[in-house]
């Protein structure tokens, strides 16, 4: 089935016959990733031409609002985009995902499944619904371990599980291992999820809104834990969130998504200090900040996020952008390319360099 969809997808979109045979040097390299879901109302272009790279030991923050395609991106890296609702079964995917020299989109489904949970693992948003209510926390982690260590005995797996629970800060792990998810608090459950994800020492960890369902004091604990564990295990981490505060805490690089595309990407400090895209400005202006003087008004982006079935023409952000006039109509008609706007800093915007810099320093930054 996957073969069929793949060929039809390739036929539907641009030709991708000519795959470069040379694997990229980066640990994770995503090239022109597209994930489209045909529905009765039209094709939902959840991810539409996304590229990025990530090295081991580094953290990439993917930021976006609901419907920006950030979650689908992470699921499709793991080959899980077909999972869930029925419509996802017909998902069309194209592009390349290279993990440690191995291309995953064209790879055999069994091979990807084998990597899943072993070389690449994921933490989900709501740890209550993400764990099976009928199995004990221990059973679920033991299972995750034994899938990829079939020769390990139950006893060994259990020992390893208790070690992991201890490592993620669960008190009395040898006793709590037999508890069920509902007997854990929200923060403990997320710790257990992290233990489950890390039990096989993955070199890529994807955390999809890992703290959104948690209280702020627990969020701080979990963010600290993720940071410590990354240092210890040296894995590459992708953290997906809508919260700029969370990425600022963790990410080395930030990628801002809008309407299924990357609109800005660069080192964290650059994105926060010299953002170049009006949407990024809007996100920064939308959030009240505790670390600055209180402003009288927030400066939100007008309007709502676009429909992924019917993206606006040209720059998808143009109906909400206050600066379209400065582009001489280009933003309504031409899809902006991601261009280098600074060192390792890319943005997809039609505004000229001078305009962008003037707007940021004169209009946006002072109001933050």
């Amino acid at each position, binding site marked *: 089935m996957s073969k069929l969809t793949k060929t039809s997808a390739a036929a539907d979109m641009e030709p991708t016959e000519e795959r470069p045979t040379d694997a990229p040097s980066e640990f994770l390299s995503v090239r022109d990733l597209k994930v489209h879901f045909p529905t009765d109302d039209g094709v939902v272009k959840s991810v539409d031409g996304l590229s990025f790279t990530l090295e081991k030991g580094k953290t990439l923050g993917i930021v976006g609002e609901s419907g920006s395609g950030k979650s689908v991106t992470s699921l499709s890296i*793991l080959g*899980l985009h077909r*999972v*869930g*609702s*029925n419509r996802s079964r017909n998902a069309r995917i194209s592009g390349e995902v290279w993990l440690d020299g191995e291309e995953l989109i064209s790879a055999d489904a069994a091979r990807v*499944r*084998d*990597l*899943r*949970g*072993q070389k690449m*693992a*994921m933490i*989900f948003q*709501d740890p209550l*619904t*993400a*764990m*099976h*209510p*009928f*199995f*004990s926390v221990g059973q*679920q982690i033991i*299972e*995750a371990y034994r*899938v*990829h260590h079939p020769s390990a005995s139950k006893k060994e797996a259990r020992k390893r599980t208790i070690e992991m629970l201890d490592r993620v800060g669960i008190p009395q792990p040898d006793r709590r291992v037999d508890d*069920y998810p*509902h*007997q854990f608090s929200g923060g403990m459950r997320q710790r257990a*999820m992290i233990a*489950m994800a890390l039990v096989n020492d993955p070199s890529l960890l994807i955390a999809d809104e890992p703290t959104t369902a948690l209280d702020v004091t627990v969020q701080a604990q979990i963010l600290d834990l993720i940071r410590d564990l990354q240092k210890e295990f040296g894995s590459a981490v992708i953290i997906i969130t809508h919260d700029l505060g969370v990425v600022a805490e963790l990410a080395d690089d930030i990628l801002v998504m809008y309407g299924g595309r990357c609109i800005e990407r660069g080192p964290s400090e650059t994105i926060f200090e010299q953002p170049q895209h009006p949407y990024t400005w809007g996100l920064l202006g939308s959030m009240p900040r505790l670390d600055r003087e209180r402003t009288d008004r927030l400066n939100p982006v007008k309007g709502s996020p676009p429909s992924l079935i019917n993206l606006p023409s040209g720059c998808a952000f143009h109906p909400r952008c206050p600066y379209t006039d400065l582009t001489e109509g280009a933003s309504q008609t031409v899809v902006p390319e991601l261009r280098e706007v600074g060192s390792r800093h890319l943005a997809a915007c039609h505004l000229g360099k001078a305009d962008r810099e003037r707007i940021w320093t004169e209009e946006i930054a002072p109001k933050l």
Partner: protein
Amino acid sequence: MLVYLIRRLVNVAVLLLVVSAITFGIFFMVPKLTGSDPALLYVGKIADKAAVEGIRHKMGLDKSIAEQYFLFLKGLFVGRDYSQGTDVTHCSAPCFGYSFKTEQEVWPLLLDRLPVTLSLASGASVIWLVVGTGTGIVSALRRRSVLDRATMVTALAGVSLPIYFTGLLALSIFVNTLGWLPNNYVNFTDDPVEWARNLILPWITLAFLYAATYARLTRATLLEVLGEDYIRTARAKGLKENKVIGKHALRSTMTPILTVFGLDIGALIGGAVLTEKTFDLRGLGYEAVQAISQSDLPVILGVTLFAAFFVIMANLVVDLLYAVVDPRVRLG
């Protein structure tokens, strides 16, 4: 857990007592109110007055309702004596009294009918569980396929067609026209093969109806479960699809099916009235219809209590199984 079990059993006892009181009230009070006389039913219309009075006294029908109910309960637990002067009849516990019509003891009658009903219910339930949940699972996994659509149309037919239609149709085709199958109940202990051969038609007819419901229920539940986050987690671990479905998804799909199954099987043991009547199986349901048409109060009372007992016990078993399956129930 033990405390829970004891409490539940006490509940069962209380519930049965209430059911017995209500049933007793209905079946012994109503004739009184409508002016028909249970004693007359025993001896027949042509009997002389003295004989009627004698029976009335012997059966205790001249006592107050409360006293009669007490005697009835006493009969259930320790047995009772029916006496008319020197003519004493002992009815040992559990005593449901005597049939008005045949003057047989009700309890042995019930025990006699039970195997038929149990045979019918057990065979049919196995078939509908396997077929119903099986097709439901396949339908859910191959959603919108031809197979799924065909199954769901068939299931719709199964739910809508009455059993006396499908049953009689099956009888006329396989027994009367083709002559492939017999239709005489044989005890399992006498000849298991003949037992099955005779029951296969009622089983399938009854199972068709239930399998349809179960297929739809299974399909809907499984589809819902497959959308759950923990299924995504299971896949993210790298589990093989058959394990994701077989271990993680089906475990959650089981619970609602279990509930419905418990209720169905309880009700069925209480009497599959239409099926038994259609196939002329002399089970509890058959007996109930018979007794009602003849106003045979002790038998009606016996069958009703028997049925209530099975429904309540099935519910109890379901609840206990629920606790086994779902730790949230077990551990609060």
